[in-house]
């Protein structure tokens, strides 16, 4: 198997903050690899190191077989970068932005123009082609960002949180575009804080927290590795929630969560379900919904990191912005 991206022991500090604490990655050529983690986990720093924008303090990495430090110029000829920190120029039109990049990549004026027209058409931006990018909607901006990173027909594409802040429809459109790219043989490194996104797109996922890869595997492997299943109980009367939670805690020995009038608790023992049902009956709690399901990546993340992925978003939102 050939690897489009390899990283070994990447360490990067910003003052007292350690953004990367020894990251190893191996992304097979042609795969979509997801870096999953909350804001501040070090995802963006990892991408910036791999995209030659930032030097790691320790460790080394190659992209397309070239060292990102020693052969940065060669790496740059192979990659495309789209993300929160690599933006198009808002004061240029869609066409001008793509023309600029085409010309910088050495295309002739005519070729750059043709390529821009084609990409704008592919990404449904033809109607907005002659408008300044600052007038674009969020979804259009992301599509233009992505188009800009594809002008050079990259072999390796870095997508740094490509759908953060997008509405579900724009997000689905972007996912379809990414699937199309993968079908054409592009290797994609995707960072995301959305478990669903990683699950939808990535063949392999590395879960990152506090600058370390804490788990790696296919979405299915990760789901199985962390065990088990989740028991969800929704009492008819929300007033019964504390009783249900107490019963769930007692039977499973794990800490239940209450959200949307539903008590969820991880279970590993198959006898837990009937036990919970008996106890609920004894306590005269009527149940509107009771289900045992395979754990989602959400729960995987919770069991790996000890905290939920999404709840950290607000708290850590500023953290990564400063060093990155």
């Amino acid at each position, binding site marked *: 198997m050939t690897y489009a991206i390899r990283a070994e022991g990447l360490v990067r500090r910003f003052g007292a903050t350690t953004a990367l604490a020894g990251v190893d990655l191996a992304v097979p050529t042609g795969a979509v690899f997801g870096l999953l983690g909350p804001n501040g986990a070090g995802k963006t720093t990892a991408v*910036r190191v791999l*995209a*030659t*924008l930032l030097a790691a303090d320790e460790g080394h990495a190659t992209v397309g077989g*070239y060292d990102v430090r020693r*052969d940065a*110029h*060669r790496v*740059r*000829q*192979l*990659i495309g*970068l789209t*993300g*929160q*920190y*690599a*933006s*198009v*120029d*808002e*004061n*240029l*039109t869609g066409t*001008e932005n793509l023309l*600029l*990049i085409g*010309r*910088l*990549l*050495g295309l002739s004026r005519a070729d750059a123009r043709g390529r821009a027209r*084609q*990409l704008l058409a*592919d990404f449904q931006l033809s109607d907005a082609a002659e408008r*300044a990018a*600052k007038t674009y909607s969020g979804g259009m901006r992301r599509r233009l960002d992505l188009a*800009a990173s*594809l002008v*050079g*027909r990259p*072999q390796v594409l870095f997508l740094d949180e490509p759908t953060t802040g997008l509405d579900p429809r724009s997000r689905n459109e972007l996912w379809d*575009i990414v699937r*199309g*790219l993968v079908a*054409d*043989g*592009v290797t994609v490194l995707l960072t995301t804080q959305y478990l669903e996104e990683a699950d939808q797109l990535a063949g392999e996922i590395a879960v990152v927290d506090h600058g370390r890869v804490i788990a790696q595997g296919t979405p299915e492997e990760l789901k199985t590795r962390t065990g088990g299943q989740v028991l969800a109980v929704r009492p008819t009367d929300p007033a019964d929630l504390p009783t249900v939670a107490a019963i769930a805690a007692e039977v499973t020995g794990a800490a239940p969560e209450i959200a949307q009038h539903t008590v969820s608790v991880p279970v590993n023992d198959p006898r837990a379900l009937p036990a919970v049902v008996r106890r609920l009956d004894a306590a005269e709690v009527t149940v509107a919904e009771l289900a045992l399901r395979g754990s989602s990546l959400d729960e995987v993340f919770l069991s790996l990191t000890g905290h939920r992925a999404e709840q950290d978003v607000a708290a850590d939102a500023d953290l990564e912005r400063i060093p990155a």
Partner: protein
Amino acid sequence: MTAATLTGAPPAPARRPSLAAGLRHTLTLAWRSLVQIKHNPMELLDLSIQPVMFVLLFTYVFGGAISGSPGDYLKFALPGIIVQNAFFATMTTGFGLNQDLTKGVFDRLRALPVARWAPLAGRIVADTVKQAWSLVLLLGIGMILGFRLGAGLPGLVGAFALLLAFSLAASWISVLVGVLVSEPDKVQIFGFMVIFPLTFTSNAFVPTETMPSWLQRWVEVNPVTILADALRGLLVSGPVAGPVGQSLLWAAGILAVFAPLAVRALRRRV
């Protein structure tokens, strides 16, 4: 998305961009800075209306009081206004650079296989073009109001060259500020805080005789004074060699101090 958009052999990877490629990148990036003006009318206002307004206001409001008549004052003040305008115009370099840094455009450019120095060089080339435009505009409006070249075409060419050389050096101060501050507006605040007093404590607008002696001592060494005198010599009349030489020394000094500082700050930031 069709397969045709993504396949196609990539160019054989070169280890480093050639100098010729770097120059081409610089010109492309300069084009980008200039074409922005089209979508940003405020910048056109900065570049065109402001200089014209300064000439008109200074000439007709202060002219009579300072030199007896607007026409006489224009001869003295136009070179000064040109210098002040050039100093302010250097701030656009830092402003644009800071905007690129904060908005992520700079990262996008750095992730492309372009020469490392091209993004900065492209910006400076574009800003030199803008400087030239302001200078033409200022001289044009001056001519309409009665300003006459005293030293003909050679003087005009010399004035152009000197001013552009000086702005090129001074724009490194702007680059340093642009890299150090957190948002573009702060570049403008710096511009007002420093360039206003700097250009007013000179002989750009007012002869120095009426100033207190301690101020006169500063005014005499202020690069704004020296550059204004050099332009007076080249455009109107008066000594040329002395002030031109001193202006070039100032430019060299500024370049020697601020270019390395700015480059170092930029390396640290990105």
